[in-house]
């Protein structure tokens, strides 16, 4: 076995990432840029990879929660354009936090992404702890 044998897999991954035709849907963006860690069912691997199902409603009910979803490195540093990032985040909220959508979630826009994307988060654990502490999610009637 040499290094050569793993190169085809890398090449395939690179081709998938680069193929413009495949980037036509937010699901494909999710599959390429998010699902590797958050998993197809959005349950992630807590505590390192938060569960989208459990945490999105909590984070989005806290001050700064909307911005956090933009600023977290997996979002901010992805190769997606501002418009595509807005689109996949809206898709994620609709898919994994339908209750949030039902309560009148205002969709992300490319302008909102651009406004927060380049403010790096360097202390993620503390920000997550703050969001959980300040979230009003648990105080709402469900």
């Amino acid at each position, binding site marked *: *076995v*040499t*290094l*050569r044998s*793993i*190169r085809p897999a*890398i090449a395939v991954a*690179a081709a998938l990432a680069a193929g413009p035709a495949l980037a036509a849907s937010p699901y494909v963006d999710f599959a390429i840029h998010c699902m*590797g*860690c958050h998993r197809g069912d959005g349950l992630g*691997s807590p505590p*390192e*990879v938060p569960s989208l199902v459990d945490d999105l409603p909590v984070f989005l009910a806290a001050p700064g929660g909307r911005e956090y979803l933009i600023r*977290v*490195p*997996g979002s*901010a*540093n992805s*190769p997606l354009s501002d418009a595509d990032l807005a689109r996949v985040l809206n898709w994620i909220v609709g898919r994994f936090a339908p209750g949030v959508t039902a309560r009148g979630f205002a969709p992300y826009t490319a302008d909102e992404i651009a406004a927060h994307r*380049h403010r*790096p*988060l*360097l*202390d*993620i*654990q503390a920000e997550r702890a703050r969001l959980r502490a300040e979230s009003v999610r648990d105080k709402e009637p469900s």
Partner: protein
Amino acid sequence: VIDFGRRPGAPLALACLLFCSAVPAATPAGPPRERVGAVATLPASPGPHWMWVYDANLSSMPDGRAILVDGDAGNVLGMVSTGYSFVSFTLPRDYRSLFSAETYYSRTTRGMRTDVLSIYDPRTLAPRAEIVLPTKRASTIPRAADSAITDDDRFLAVFNLTPASSLSIVDTAAEKFVGEIEIPGCAMAYAAGRRTLFSLCSDGSVVASHLTDDGTLRGRDRLPGFFTLADPIIEAGVRAGDTWRFISFGGNVYTLVANESSLTAGERWPLFSAAARKQGWQSGGMLPTALHVATGRLHVLTYRGATRNHKLPGTEVWTFDVATHARVARIRLPTPVRAIQVTQDDDPLLFALSDTTADLYVFDARTGVLKKTIPQIGITPILMQSPWVRP
């Protein structure tokens, strides 16, 4: 110094002797007969032409190994078994210990995972101690910056990827794990002073983590826009004092001046002329650069081919003067090579690992003359490191 009798290092050293005896000797009469049970001890100070070769053994990942080579004699001085998904040693300047971030499973390929920082004695190559780490160390294709040690040898950082990225910090004086430092969106660790490590980030920035004297996080600096996705840099950096140099996919040298007080982007210059670029010349390999610090000679593995194949092995080594940016030498390699490294003495040797045969070539770095070939040094050796540092 030759010791006899049972000692903790005997199995490792014995494996070395068996391995050593497989290396063809220079005399037609064959290798000298060796006494079974003879255990050699290495000198306390490394030779200027020694080279550690790190083999992740990708065909059997629980069985990584580090191999110590003497470039003058062209033989193997010793070998260490280093566990699952091995990357490299982290060598302190005083060379009193060999640090190795390692992973083990209780049933070898399954079961309870344990990550440790093993500490080996550089004279006997026997394990001397181990420090248990969080079971988070990144298991990746080996990269030299997966661990780093501060310039005073005190704090050692191991890169974690869960995929949340962080550094496990170890106090080498107390021989204990201190804690973790988050480096969100960033990767790996490079030394930049007594209490500073920096990491490269996926948005093109550089983030420095400054430590306290206890090894906890004192503060951070961030340099945005050091590189962009349009011309990504390769993580294998070379260092001369405060100055780190990285080459990019596009064949440019990016310079970073990093120390305890600041991060500054320095000059950026192209390795390849327009004519060379037109011919398809570019850098290649897993460890594509090696810098001889005293002379400012930057050796770069190169090959001709389609762009964006920067991991493909090099067919030549091109040597540049980092002061003038001129190419000053060119070495044609016997087979495609995946990694190069150079010693730091005044008669430097350039080591090159064959991608096809795992042979280790030893060149005179100044003349390009091939001096030794050590056949099949390992299974999938990827990284090399010279233990000798200029006093």
